[in-house]
Structure formats: structure tokens, C-alpha cells
């Protein structure tokens, strides 16, 4: 089972915690219209794979990459959409 990637698939609800430090509103209710297949889905409905090498969220209709979040000690890298480039957020010090 663990070797079947679909068996480890989560959904976007699991992104609520990792993305919480960089959003003022809960990100899982945000709506996305897929540029590839036009399907509308909230972030909570995206299909999420991971956690290594990062949490990858894909369109539930056509699997197009919607966002990628990579956690490092002290940092969160966030890539939105399929484009190249990611934003690096510095997280508040642990315990703070």
C-alpha cells in the first residue's frame, strides 16, 4: 500500500496547518478554477501528495499542478500554479 502513491493521497484539508503561517484567512476554502480543464475546486478539494519532497496539490479533475509547499526548518517555500519559481517565507522562531 505505501508504495501506491494513490493510497497515500490526502486532500487539501491537510494543507490547512502547513499554510496557516502565511495566510490570514483559512486557505482551504479558497476557490481555484483550473486553467487546464476549467474545473472549479476549493483548496480543500485538491488532491495532495507528499510529504516528500514537498506537499504537492493537484487539480482533482486533470491532475494539473495547483501548488507546492515545501517545509524546511524555519522556512516555507510556496509555489503557486505550474510556473517556475517559489516564494520563501521565513517562519516565526519555534516556540514563539
Amino acid at each position, binding site marked *: 500500500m505505501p508504495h501506491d502513491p494513490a493510497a497515500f493521497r490526502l486532500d487539501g484539508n491537510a494543507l490547512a*496547518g502547513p499554510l496557516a503561517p502565511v495566510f490570514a484567512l483559512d486557505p482551504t476554502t479558497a476557490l481555484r478554477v483550473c486553467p487546464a480543464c476549467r474545473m472549479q475546486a476549493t483548496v480543500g478539494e485538491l488532491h495532495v501528495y507528499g510529504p516528500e519532497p514537498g506537499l504537492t496539490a493537484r487539480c482533482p479533475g486533470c491532475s494539473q499542478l495547483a501548488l507546492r509547499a515545501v517545509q524546511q526548518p524555519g522556512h516555507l517555500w510556496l509555489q503557486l500554479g505550474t510556473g517556475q519559481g517559489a516564494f520563501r517565507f521565513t517562519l516565526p522562531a519555534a516556540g514563539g
Partner: protein
Amino acid sequence: MPSPPSGASAWRTARLLSREPQISTGRTLRFTVPDWPGHLAGQHVDVRLTADDGYQAVRSYSLAAPAEGDTVELGVQAAPDGEVSPYLADVLPIGAEVEIQGPLGGWFIWTPRDAGPLLLFAGGCGIVPLMAMLRARRAAGSAEPCTLLYSARSPDEVWYARELADPGPAEEIRLIYTRQAPPGDPRTTGRVGAQDLAGLPEPGSARCYVCGPTGFVEHVADLLQTAGHPRELIRTERFG
């Protein structure tokens, strides 16, 4: 529905208050979290453990009940050879501290203001956030019909058995046994099928919530869509 403010990014210290067995591998854990802001049924927390050498592990656990002041209730099932869940379920000492981030998630939630019949589909420990919905519904005295379909391997794998044996008004509990049923159960054991959905409220009126292992969630979401329930009214939470 407006997005709930996140405001949930802080890690708070949570102290283990009590541990109570539910099934052979499942425990109810209560934690005291100072200044807990309250939460909605269906939300979860992320629990972070830090080892002496600084190594950290984070896992998500659903909130099983409305908060009671600063006390929150989780339901943790020990996964075979899992890194975190067997530790939380059976090893973490009473009085010990972990860190908790939350409440998290505004999508897989239900509030008593949500009109329409409620359909809850639980597989295994996927019952945890759905129990929070059932409890919130009972506390609010909701008159909307509610059906819980709960798939469990056998009678001794049923969480919250005593509470579920006493359904509230307009509430129906259907237990679906996959491996071993109690004597006299007219249903043949096996996974949820289309016939188990007979007699449910009309597709289009009912809000459906499905939670459990990924395979269970995908199977039930497919059954519901085949039965005519629109995708917009089906919300899922995959536990992995």
C-alpha cells in the same frame, strides 16, 4: 460561507489530561490547551512532537467534540509501525506536553446553521470528525434528519459505541460491518455498496461528509455521485 479567519498558525502547548480506550487500537485523548479559541465540528489540529535532539514530527488529528473551555478531545488510532500515532495512543504520559496548531480547516466543517439533511459516512477512525458533527447537532437540537453510515471491521472496532447506540431525534445510525457482524445482522459482511444507500434523503438536498482511509473515501464518493448526489454537496477528508 465566509472563510473563517485562520489565526491558527500559533503553536500552543497542550497537556495530556486523560486517555480512554475506544477500541483495541483507538483512544480518546483529552488535552488542556490554555486560551483555546474554540472550534467548529470537522476541524482538526496539527500535533507536533519534538525529540531531545530537536527532530520534529507533525501529524493531523481531528477534533472529536465541541471544546469544553480549554479542553479539546482527539481520537487517535495507532497505525501499525506508525511513527507518531502509537506513541500518542499508548506512550505519551498523562501530564506530558505536546504542541498543537489549530483549529485548522474551514472546508470540511458543518455547523447547525447549515440547512438540509445530513449524511455522514465514516470508515474506521474517520468517525472522529463526524462524531464532532453528530455531537454538535445533538447539542443544537437540530430537527434536520441525519444518517450516519459507519463502516467498521467488526462490532469491537466501533468507536463511541455507547453514544451511537442511543440515537437522537431524527437520527439514524447504520453500522456496516466489513469482516464480522454481530449475530442476527441481516446484512452480509463486506464493504459499503449501493444497496447500503437505500432510503437515504434525495440527492440534491442532503449534505454529504465522507471521512476515513483514502480508499474508503474515494469508493464512497464514487457511490454517492453514481447515486446522483451532486459533487457540490459532497465533502471529503482523506486520512491517508
